């Protein structure tokens, strides 16, 4: 089914936050720090106030006086300055907010604010931070740059197993800092209406959580806050956190009594909003000589930047990193993460990733290739040998997850057959004999998505359920509202299809509404591939409740007892008598016109608390050629075989996979938010932080296997992130495989042409 939401986007009628215009609206611009770490000696706003059209300037001191100086981060373990107080902690940090009549006047005003800085020593990496020679956050109780230590698994048994293993490999792997960079930057419009109620339009993936967070931060009662998240131009995790600019816009609207719009620039987006990854991982695998895994150990230094604004569930500061044992039956394992403050932008959000799953998946998939290389075993054979077997599900992993379902061998074999692995191996051998560099890279990943069961998962204390409310109208049309929020994932189509399938109605007449906290039931929003696993399950469950109610009305219409009615072939019929039946449409009409002894109306609500996470998985294969002279990597083929359980809309799923693969391709080959040793951000716009164009993006081949989730009402698992989680390792493994005849064992992402060229040059120099 084609997407229902498309006609408005195709005609320029999408409604994004920057399209909101209100009478008397002011514009806000932010003054940002030019220094990565500096004391603020003074802020002079006098020149700014003289700029034509400027109405007000606020600084950190003003906010502090109003009790709004700091903002709690989402997991509740740290706080972040709204506007700098006393000192700045990263380049481009928010220092002052300027409110003016026009967008241009606000920008002029921001230019005119004079800030006198006294530079302080800069900490630009977690290893320097660890030394605690410069304490970045004296505002905290503990005077250290160390934020937290988190660990899972059995440290001692793992150590013994690794030491006792006949074969051991160890590799430092850095998953570089990158940024989701949705094409629509973040922004908001804040207005206090005539009743004094905050009307807040914002680019949010989690509008209800925003409402609660704004209430907690500002003290505005939650009933006086209306959050509206309209069409969103991509999110990818970037639109989960609450940013300082939002608080400033609300303060400005309150102070000036006029609506305030703030839309960040691309530079502001890349330099100050939630980055992703920045994990330095030391991973070790133990194995038997024939390649059976005996143990896994990983120790990570995480760079969290100036504030601990990682958007992870409260009890999981390192997210789902414990899925680092991947698709393999590892007998014993231990993982630990130590996070540090540095003079970089805060974040650590889940960029198209279910909380640190991408880092974990990349580490194990790279390590498996390194192990295969050292053992002299084919990388496919090593995976085959160690896969969790179909009959082992539900599988309890060494690090505490219960994998719901999968058939990894089947998925792998389908991929090998589809791509013609044997022929590729033959071709590779011929090319190697001629000195040509061809690589075949695998990633056989397992993800964990759909946070999450309430006993483990919360954000700001709020359990990570999601919700759906369904109303069926007299004519058999209906509306479904959820606590999720689409940013391009196609919810308006997929949700309508779930309801239509459960109730035998026309999906074209099931309207989907999200993002409005006045109308939608409370939910935790869309990120971490949780929409279909959680909100999708809530929709199916609510639809089944509607069906239960409808069954009573059907019994009345059919003049039999409810026990004599069955739902079959999308209609209610008297058991065994197909001739005596009524459709849902007839029942819907009767619910309002002739409900009999039943309560009128036909609607239901469900708050779905998932019993477990879901575990999508797949086999990805990249085939590359590397130019020995220039270091250029050409992606010849890329095949993704995904298993995301039951597929609701194949078109939407394929689209998600194409998009995620393209983002994974970008991370593998071109994207990094780099800082120099002085803490200067070097990738502040799209000319330095590269997004692949149509020209270099490879052609994607896709296929799937279907292993339904046993605990999800319709067996679906979530797919949006699999391609971004799984693909970087396939790309890098392919490049390393191509370079392996030269003895190259590892390259850090992004695997740029010059890195490859240098690796080839160094390897060749070493030989001669």
């Amino acid at each position, binding site marked *: 089914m*084609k*997407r229902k*939401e*498309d*006609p*408005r*986007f*195709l*005609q*320029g*009628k*999408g*409604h*994004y936050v*920057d*399209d909101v*215009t209100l009478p008397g609206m002011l514009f806000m611009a932010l003054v940002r720090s030019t220094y990565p770490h500096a004391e603020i000696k003074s802020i002079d706003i006098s020149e700014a106030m003289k700029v034509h059209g400027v109405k007000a300037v606020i600084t950190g001191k003003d906010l502090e006086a109003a009790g709004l100086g700091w903002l709690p981060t989402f997991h509740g373990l740290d706080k972040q300055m709204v506007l700098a107080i006393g000192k700045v902690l990263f380049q481009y940090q928010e220092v002052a907010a300027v409110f003016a009549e026009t*967008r*241009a006047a606000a920008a002029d005003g921001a230019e005119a604010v004079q800030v006198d800085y006294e530079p302080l020593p800069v900490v630009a990496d977690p290893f320097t931070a660890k030394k605690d020679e410069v304490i970045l956050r004296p505002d905290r109780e503990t005077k250290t740059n160390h934020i937290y230590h988190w660990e899972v698994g059995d440290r001692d048994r793992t150590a013994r197993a690794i030491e006792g293993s006949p074969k051991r490999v160890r590799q430092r792997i850095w998953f570089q800092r990158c940024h989701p*960079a*949705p*094409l*629509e*930057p973040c922004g908001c419009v804040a207005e206090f209406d005539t009743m004094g109620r905050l009307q807040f339009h914002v680019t949010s993936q989690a509008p209800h959580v925003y409402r609660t967070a704004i209430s907690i931060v500002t003290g505005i009662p939650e009933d006086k806050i209306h959050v509206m998240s309209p*069409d*969103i*131009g*991509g999110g*990818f995790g970037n639109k989960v956190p609450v940013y300082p600019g939002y608080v400033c816009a609300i303060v400005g609207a309150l102070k000036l009594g006029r609506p305030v719009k703030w839309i960040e*620039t*691309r*530079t502001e987006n890349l330099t100050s909003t939630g980055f992703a990854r920045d994990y330095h991982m030391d991973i070790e695998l133990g194995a038997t000589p024939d390649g059976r895994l005996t143990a896994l150990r990983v120790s990570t230094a995480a760079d969290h930047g100036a504030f601990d604004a990682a958007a992870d569930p409260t009890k999981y500061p390192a997210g789902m990193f414990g899925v680092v044992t991947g698709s393999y039956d590892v007998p014993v394992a231990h993982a630990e993460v130590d996070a540090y403050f540095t003079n970089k932008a805060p974040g650590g959000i889940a960029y198209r990733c279910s909380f640190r799953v991408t880092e974990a998946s990349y580490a194990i998939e790279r390590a498996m290739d390194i192990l295969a290389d050292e053992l002299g075993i084919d990388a496919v054979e090593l995976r085959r040998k160690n896969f969790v077997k179909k009959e082992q599900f539900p599988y309890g992993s060494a690090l505490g997850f219960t994998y719901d379902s999968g058939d990894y061998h089947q998925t792998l074999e389908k991929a090998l057959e589809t791509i013609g692995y044997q022929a590729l191996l033959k071709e590779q051998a011929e090319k190697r004999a001629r000195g040509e560099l061809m690589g075949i890279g695998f990633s056989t990943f397992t993800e964990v998505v759909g946070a999450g069961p309430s006993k483990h998962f919360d954000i700001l204390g709020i359990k990570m359920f999601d919700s759906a409310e369904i109303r069926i109208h007299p004519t058999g049309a209906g509306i479904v509202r959820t606590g999720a929020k689409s*940013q*391009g*994932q*196609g919810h308006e189509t997929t949700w309508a299809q779930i309801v239509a399938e459960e109730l035998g109605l026309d999906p074209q007449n099931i309207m989907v509404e999200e993002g409005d906290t006045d109308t939608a039931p409370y939910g935790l929003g869309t990120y971490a591939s949780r929409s279909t696993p959680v909100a999708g399950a809530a929709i199916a469950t609510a639809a089944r409740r509607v069906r239960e109610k409808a069954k009573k009305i059907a019994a009345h219409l059919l003049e039999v007892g409810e026990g004599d009615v069955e739902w079959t072939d999308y209609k209610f019929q008297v058991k065994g008598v197909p001739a005596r039946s009524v459709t849902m449409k007839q029942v819907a009409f009767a619910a309002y016109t002739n409900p009999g002894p039943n309560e009128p109306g036909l609607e239901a609500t469900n708050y779905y608390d998932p019993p477990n996470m879901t575990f999508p998985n797949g086999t990805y294969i990249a085939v590359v050629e590397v130019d020995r002279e220039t270091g250029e990597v050409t992606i010849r083929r890329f095949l993704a075989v995904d298993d995301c359980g039951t597929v609701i809309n194949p*078109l*939407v799923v*394929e*689209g*998600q996979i*194409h*998009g*995620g*693969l*393209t*983002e994974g391709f970008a991370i593998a080959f071109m994207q990094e938010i780099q800082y120099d040793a002085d803490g200067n951000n070097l990738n502040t*716009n*799209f*000319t330095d932080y590269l*997004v692949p*164009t*149509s*020209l270099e*993006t490879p*052609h*994607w081949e896709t296929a799937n296997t279907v292993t339904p989730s046993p605990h999800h009402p319709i067996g679906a698992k979530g797919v949006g992130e699999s391609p971004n989680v799984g693909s970087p390792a396939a790309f890098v493994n392919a490049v390393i495989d191509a370079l392996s005849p030269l003895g190259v064992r590892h390259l850090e992402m992004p695997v740029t042409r010059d890195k490859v060229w240098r690796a080839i040059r160094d390897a060749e120099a070493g030989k001669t």
Partner: protein
Amino acid sequence: MKVTIKVNGVPYERDVEPRTLLAYFLREACALTGTHVGCDTSSCGCCVVVMDGATAVKSCTMFAVQADGHEILTVEGLAQGGALHPIQQAFWDKHGLQCGYCTPGMMLTSYVLLKHNPDPSESEIREGLAGNLCRCTGYQNIVKAVQQAAEAIRQPAAAGK
């Protein structure tokens, strides 16, 4: 400064600051918000509109005064008489959009591409769209959409088969 710019066939006479970018002229002075802004460096192409029928321009990189006296086509002007333009239809049919933010610029670049080259190869399409970024689709379905649109424009009778 006073400018008169014909947008989607309608003349808009407005008084603008000289530094007003065409993108904001369209969005704010003409209330045509289908033209989007996604970067500050002329990289993303979300703001592409068509000038004088055959040139794709990035409206964030042009002042409104530079468009004075010219004709501009925006996404709002693509559909005619309530019927989607073949490019719009093809983007829908081939799932060539997800969040919709790049879509107007992507379609208008395709419009100009097909004006100059009614039967482009896949590599010509990929080259033609290289000034427009998309974060959602991976471009593959956009390429298919342009292929379908090209065929529909060349052979209107066979369209939609």
